[in-house]
């Protein structure tokens, strides 16, 4: 009964994958339509030895870890805050969710022009109010700036998941810990945090998948630059296949990205997948 669905899904997944793998072994450059045929591992060789490849890998890693750190820690703090009863709770909860609905390109433009602009940005104005100078975020620390933008986008997701986890905690457990003499900090470390591990695992897993492929924010703001300072793997694939018109090399980059993503997923599942078991 389910076989048609499985077949559709399989084709859906297999065909693009197979085509990417196929192209990655072909000479396929849009500027030289006459050069065709089997390329062997040349595409892979040139992609890996490209001077931009290593920075791209490290930047991808930094981007993922940076955003994960900000969103999980910030998400836990926000969730703890939003779990407290206060006036206007409903509206605040709604507003906290808002960044998640903003499109990545829009959020990147807003951040670039309204906040981080060294002359007219809000941060520049604040700095001037204190007698300082505007800081050129995207020029001086481009990767950090992109981490901040992406983290802002994903913070609501983390907060929402962690808040639901927090609200499912049995009040009596907290009260029991209170009777047992646990301070606020001990209650957080021994009761609340262990209760949230599963949700934190989910947040990390899902976010890793999405943040590995961050692309729009970079395209809109820094274009990977200055130099290779904010270049990540998906953006390098774009540069190779669209800017350099080398579809073969872009496909090879795509396959490498798939392999790396699977390695990351494997280690993630091994490291924290245990939390999902019980």
């Amino acid at each position: 009964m389910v076989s048609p669905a499985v077949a559709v899904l399989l084709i859906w997944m297999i065909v693009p994958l197979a085509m990417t793998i196929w192209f990655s072994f072909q000479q396929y450059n849009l500027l030289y339509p006459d050069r065709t045929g089997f390329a062997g591992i040349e595409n892979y060789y040139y992609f890996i030895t490209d001077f931009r490849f290593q920075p791209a890998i490290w930047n991808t890693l930094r981007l993922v870890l940076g955003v994960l750190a900000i969103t999980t820690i910030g998400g836990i703090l926000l969730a703890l805050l939003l779990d407290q009863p206060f006036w206007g709770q409903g509206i605040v909860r709604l507003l906290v969710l808002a960044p998640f609905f903003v499109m990545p390109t829009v959020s990147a433009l807003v951040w670039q022009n309204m906040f981080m602009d060294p002359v007219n940005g809000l941060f520049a104005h604040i700095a001037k109010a204190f007698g300082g100078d505007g800081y050129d975020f995207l020029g001086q620390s481009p990767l950090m700036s992109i981490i901040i933008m992406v983290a802002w986008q994903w913070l609501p997701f983390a907060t929402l998941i962690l808040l639901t986890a927090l609200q499912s905690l049995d009040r009596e457990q907290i009260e029991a810990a209170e009777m047992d003499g646990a301070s606020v900090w001990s209650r957080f470390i021994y009761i609340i945090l262990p209760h949230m591990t599963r949700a934190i695992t989910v947040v990390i897993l899902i976010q890793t998948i999405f943040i590995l492929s961050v692309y729009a924010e970079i395209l809109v703001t820094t274009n990977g630059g200055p130099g290779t300072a904010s270049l990540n793997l998906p953006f390098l694939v774009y540069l190779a296949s669209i800017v350099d018109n080398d579809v073969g090399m872009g496909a090879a980059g795509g396959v490498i990205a798939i392999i790396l993503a699977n390695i990351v997923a494997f280690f993630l599942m091994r490291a924290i997948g245990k939390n999902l078991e019980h």
Partner: protein
Amino acid sequence: MGQITLSKVVKQFGEVTVIPPLDLEINEGEFVVFVGPSGCGKSTLLRLIAGLEDTSAGSITIDGVNATDLPPAKRGLAMVFQSYALYPHMTVRKNIAFPLKMAGMSPEEQEKRVKAAAGVLNMNKLLDRRPGQLSGGQRQRVAIGRAIVREPKAFLFDEPLSNLDAALRMGMRLEITELHQRLKTTMIYVTHDQVEAMTMADKIVVLNAGRIEQAGSPLELYKNPKNIFVASFIGSPKMNFVGGQVAKYHNAATIGVRPEHVMLSTSSGPWKGTVGVAEHLGSDTFVHVNTEEAGTITARISGEVVVKHGDTVWLTPMPDKIYRFDAEGVAI
């Protein structure tokens, strides 16, 4: 140790007064049961003593020290919750050791005390399991273990048996009573089950809408209920209440007769009626009789009686076991 005094304690949630000014004395080593229908404020009262709720007015004194504004941990009391509130990610050993760890006790001392508590409650084999792998009764035991390692001044139980099945409940009831006799620590126990109250308590406190209707030993409450509420709450099956002409004959607005004080005869008696339902328990039979004079009366007859639905019977209340109440429901 374990003397608790409540004086003029009031609890309000916003505009709603849950507990009007209330005075209560709990003596050292006493087993006190708060009993009452749901929503009567018995759990709130317990939580006030525990410190999980703030008192709106009045004072709580524990062992001569004013504890009204002390945080729960500083009051030296231990609580067993209805849901047991075990920490699911910790083993039984760590659960029991948690209060000791929070008190900064050395690991050796913790282990010693955990072993001792496990010995008292017969759960040495369970120490390395997690709460999720335990049955309801075992979880209950762990929760009690976590309470006794602290050697508190008093134990607070919040309907601890309501999640257990009937057979287990009886067993745990006995165990908690035995534990009390062994430890001789003050225990305060909240329940809505009057059987638990009757069987376990040294002193029963019957609560209704936040007020103490009556406090006293189980038999005192059974023999001399102060009003209709206490009379109907204590004793199972419930006391029969009769108003109208029958009550007037006894110079009261309402009279009450316990089912065990009604005699049943197949030939003569003052109240004639037909048998509605006869519940055969083996040792006893509860016969519900629809009488003309006194409405539906339940009679508790020792042993087996051969009456069935529709039979005509005559009931006689034992004259010296008739409780009389005035128009306000207060015993005369």
